[in-house]
């Protein structure tokens, strides 16, 4: 997997995991050490509206950790690609 994010297994970040489970190209593993890993061989893309995140949580959504390169982190779209 070339791109992944780690999500602390807590309720405020749960929409990231729920959303990722619906995506055909992503794989969710864990929990391990309190984190879930959302991974993809190509890219990850999330929509703030789809996640239902308020801005304060949206802009901290990657606080668990990141492997990859953020190509877009706008008010509504987060896209991460391989470094």
């Amino acid at each position: 997997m070339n791109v992944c994010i780690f999500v602390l297994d807590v309720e405020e970040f749960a929409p990231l995991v729920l959303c990722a489970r619906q995506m055909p190209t992503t794989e969710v593993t864990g929990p391990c050490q309190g984190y879930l890993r959302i991974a993809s061989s190509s890219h990850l893309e999330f929509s703030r509206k789809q996640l239902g995140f308020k801005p304060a949580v949206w802009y901290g959504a990657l606080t668990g950790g990141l492997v990859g390169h953020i190509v877009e982190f706008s008010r509504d779209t987060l896209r991460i690609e391989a470094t």
Partner: protein
Amino acid sequence: MSQLEKLPPTPIHGVHHTARPTWKLRETVEFYRDKLGLPLVHAISARGWPEGHPDFLHFFFDSGNGSTIAFFYYIGTTRPEQLKPFPSHFYTATHTAWQVQHLSDLDIWRQRLEANGVDLRYQTRHEIIESIYFSDPNGYPLEITYQLRPMTSMDADDADRTLRAGMALEDARKAGDITAFSCIDDVWRSKGSELAALWEART
């Protein structure tokens, strides 16, 4: 065992008071006591000491759960320029956040503040708290917050990872690597590398 290790644990037991200067005595008392409803519970009036210290009033309002918010009024002085509020995150970063026990209490506080002519800056939900923000007559930022869930050991472990990453990046920058810690992505990538290694080790 060193002398330090022989000392018994002495945990800090919450906030007694925090204090700040005011040059608006009446407005401060009327705001905290009358508009917010925080009881005035103690006041000191004294000659200035040691030498050079102006005569002063030092007074305390009860902010619940054993805590107070306190002020100094330095008689015959004027507020220095460098203590005037300025519109910046650097200024509002120093603030007081009081806790309420129910989410619905925030709505009641909104109504109370608005009825008293206090401008609310905004209400927002963060990761584990939801808060309203406003300022006192001195310009000091205040927050009333409801904690949405308890902080767990997972939060503490994650905080440790975040701050270890941040401190290492700060060290690197201080050591001359001007590319280190240029944005928050550096922290996220550092944590990501550490956790990715952990993931590999378990498979």
